[in-house]
């Protein structure tokens, strides 16, 4: 296998950054990696035909829909089940052939001779698993490295990984019933672009920025999908101590799955807890209206081995970030949506009665337990739900506080958490930030920060959680509104961005920030392995991207506006 898409990629060999052994650092084995490479390749072929069909006026949402789902399954920590990929490859090839027939018919109807395409458009998946896996080597992300060079391969990878992030966010919106023609067209076009990618750096960079722009539309669509489905988030307290009784833990990012689970458990006496990136669910009025949405359990994704083992009920992973299930809870963890692991039960919404049954069969939280809501010790809560409307609702106070100097600067500390010790940088930034700073958090990196009391400024909490990484649009709207109020550009706001990345959704968000011209982003804990020195030089030159460094020096520079 070869894979260097995520932050935890193997960097032990400086000559070849990336996971290239039988099993990657995420737990993905070489068979699954090869099958994912083949799936991506065939899916690019769908884009080749679908984009051309659309240019002739033919529109079928099935192409972008499948593309979004298929690429989402290949995101880090989503689907590790090789049998699922064998099925998906067959489905992708069938859909590509449907797209081909539709395109050729539309071309002939328009009096044109259909183009004879090659590459993914004509790639025939082998029959037999061994042959299929062998095909993966020819289409994997570093194919042609010796001819094309690392710069080109790296920038192609940036485009692919950015597109994966776009697809993940799109899928989250699609499953809530929200679609956008611009987004569908953009996905088809991006798939087609990667099917026939250029060999020069400039058009690859240009396309990466276009993906960032596309992702802005996607994030706007997802913001609309979430707020129209579940209401506008409002500041809400979240119970951190479990209550006695039967319990289900829901992790991942998919609010639609959470709502379906809340519906299925209504009136059953089973409580539902959020985990990881589901924490912001408690801010949505339509979700917190369920009285059995009892609280949040645990922290960020990388601690799931111990947290899931200790949880006394079934666990559901609705999207990334799944890591290898441990024997202690393997029999009671379920996957939904794009997620999969060989040997774990996958649930559709129609199967949720089984989940309820599992919760009722498992012990649940006992009464008066240490750390429980009715047990000894002080009950802790967190406040979430400071999305754009909540923050902008007090915009006048915020603007006044900035004008009077009570608020000196905003720090947006956003992105993914992870296991590496270097990620302490972000908690250090938060704890050492001057008292006149407001800390805006986004993504699961918040768990490193939200255990402290940062106080208030003029009645406004210093720590405001905007939501999931999926809610980046909300953060951008806040920044743009403040820029409008001060009549300056976003780069001129007293705002510093500290971004921690882990997987490909972060790549898409980074491209969006860059496409908006936002500069001086501090990115860590390490820079992506797929970006070569030359690519990094370009990003530094154009956007002043900075790798994270010494906390004190970075804080001083940030406060000085650099």
């Amino acid at each position, binding site marked *: 296998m070869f894979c260097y898409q995520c932050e935890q990629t193997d960097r032990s060999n400086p000559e070849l950054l990336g996971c290239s052994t*039988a099993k990657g650092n995420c737990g993905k084995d070489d068979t699954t990696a090869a099958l994912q490479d083949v799936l991506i390749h065939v899916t690019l072929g769908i884009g080749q035909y679908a984009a051309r069909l659309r240019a002739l006026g033919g529109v079928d949402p099935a192409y972008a829909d499948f593309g979004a789902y298929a690429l989402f399954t290949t995101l880090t920590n989503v689907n*590790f089940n090789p*049998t699922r990929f064998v099925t998906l490859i067959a489905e992708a090839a069938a859909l590509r052939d449907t797209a081909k027939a539709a395109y050729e018919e539309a071309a002939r109807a328009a009096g044109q001779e259909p183009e004879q395409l090659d590459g993914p458009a004509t790639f025939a998946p082998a029959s*037999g698993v061994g042959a299929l896996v062998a095909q993966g080597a020819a289409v994997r992300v570093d194919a042609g490295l010796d001819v094309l060079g690392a710069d080109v391969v790296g920038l192609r990878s940036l485009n692919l990984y950015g597109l994966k992030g776009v697809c993940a966010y799109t899928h989250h919106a699609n499953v809530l019933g929200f679609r956008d023609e611009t987004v569908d067209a953009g996905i088809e076009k991006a798939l087609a672009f990667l099917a026939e990618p250029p060999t020069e750096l400039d058009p690859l960079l240009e396309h990466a920025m276009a993906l960032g722009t596309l992702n802005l539309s996607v994030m706007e669509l997802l913001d609309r999908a979430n707020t129209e489905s579940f209401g506008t988030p409002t500041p809400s307290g979240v119970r951190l101590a479990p209550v006695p009784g039967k319990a289900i833990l829901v992790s991942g990012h998919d609010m639609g799955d959470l709502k379906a689970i809340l519906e299925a458990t209504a009136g059953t006496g089973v409580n539902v807890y959020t985990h990881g990136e589901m924490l912001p669910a408690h801010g949505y009025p339509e979700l917190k209206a369920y009285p059995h949405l009892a609280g949040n359990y645990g922290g960020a994704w990388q601690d799931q081995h111990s947290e899931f083992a200790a949880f006394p009920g079934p666990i559901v992973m609705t999207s990334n970030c799944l890591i290898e*299930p441990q*024997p202690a809870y393997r*029999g009671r963890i379920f996957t939904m949506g794009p997620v999969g692991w060989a040997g774990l039960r996958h649930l559709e919404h129609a199967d949720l009665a089984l989940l309820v049954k599992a919760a009722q069969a498992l012990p649940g939280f006992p009464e008066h337990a240490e750390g429980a809501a009715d047990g000894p010790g002080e009950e802790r809560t967190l406040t979430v739900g400071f999305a754009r409307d909540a923050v902008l609702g007090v915009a006048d106070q915020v603007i006044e506080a900035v004008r009077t100097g009570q608020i000196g600067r905003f720090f947006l500390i956003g992105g993914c958490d992870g296991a590496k010790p270097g990620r302490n940088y972000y908690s250090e930034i938060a704890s050492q930030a001057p008292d006149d700073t407001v800390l805006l958090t986004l993504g699961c990196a918040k768990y490193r920060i939200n255990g402290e009391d940062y106080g208030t400024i003029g009645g406004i909490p210093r720590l405001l959680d905007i939501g999931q990484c999926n809610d980046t649009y909300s953060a951008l709207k806040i920044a743009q509104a403040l820029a409008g109020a001060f009549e300056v550009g976003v780069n001129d706001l007293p705002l510093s961005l500290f971004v921690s990345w882990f997987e490909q959704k972060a790549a898409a968000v980074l491209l969006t920030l860059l496409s908006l011209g936002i500069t001086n982003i501090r990115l860590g804990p390490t820079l992506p392995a797929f970006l070569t020195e030359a690519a990094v030089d370009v990003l530094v030159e154009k956007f002043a991207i900075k790798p994270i460094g010494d906390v004190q020096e970075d804080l001083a520079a940030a406060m000085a506006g650099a």
Partner: protein
Amino acid sequence: MTAVTDTATGVTHEVVLSTSDGVENTLVCPPDLSILEAAADAGTYLPSMCGQGTCGACAAHVSAGSYVLGEHDPSVLGSDPTEGTVLLCRTTPTADCRVELPYDRTRIVDSPPPVRRATVTAIDVVAEATVRLRLGLVADELGMAAEFDPGQFLQVQVPGTEELRAYSLANCGNWDGEFELFVRVQPGGLFSTWLTTTAAVGDVVTVHGPRGAFGLRENGLRPRWFVGGGTGLAPMLSMMRRMAEWGEAQPARLYFGVNTVAEVFAQDEIAEVVAALPDAAATTCVWHPEPGASWDGFVGTPVDALVRDLAGSGEPPDVYVCGPPAMVDAVERALAAAGIPAEQVRAERFTAS
């Protein structure tokens, strides 16, 4: 000799345990303990059952280092074991060792198998000398989830004794607390005597587990062929039922062997699971049909049927085998002769008790 010296001097040895999915765990083995015991002392519970070298549940392969393999029943290691094949309950290292475990990390747990109570919910004689026993967990502090992987077994304590008897589970893990076992009635056997003379619906028994290493290669993409002899059908049914329940699409073939027509059982259950899978077929094989008995199915052993079908098959399958040692040995020889690599074969031998 070396082991004695080690015991005398108190020398310990490092043992690296490597699972089939590449996870390594190092433990220190004192001179007076088997690898199985040393692992349990370290909080690592490896699949095992009898603890006395007679069941084969803890079979593994020592790929480096030296050891003493104590008293054991050689038949549980197969007819032609490769050098280094051991039973961990009887293996004491005499130098640092590396042990290849024939199962994934998921089969190693960090606590001993739970001991729980279960109620007898059904006792059905399903064929000559074969009883289906259904048990239902009594709700306790662990709840009442029957969590296990297909291929694993449950140990039932013979009422009124401290003796345990192990039976493979035929159903799938479930949230109703149900266990389904097939018991071959052994004349004069301790459990068989209880089952056929005393046991009644409503009785409460003590159960240990489930546990065990045998099971599906979860991420296997090849066709799955299953060979069960007698009550060795149980884990095969469990695996196929799990495939059906989870919508797993690998082509499946089942070969179920018994000696006589009177011993045939579970035909409805087999038909049901075959119908529920997208590409499955089953052959029930009767070795010696009784004269005058009505049997229009396959006559011969499951090995005969397997050899017949392997000749015309495409992709070499993963094969799962469970039954008496002689049958399992015959299947392994037939598979080796057909060129099926040993790593594609997972086997469990059961012995009468």
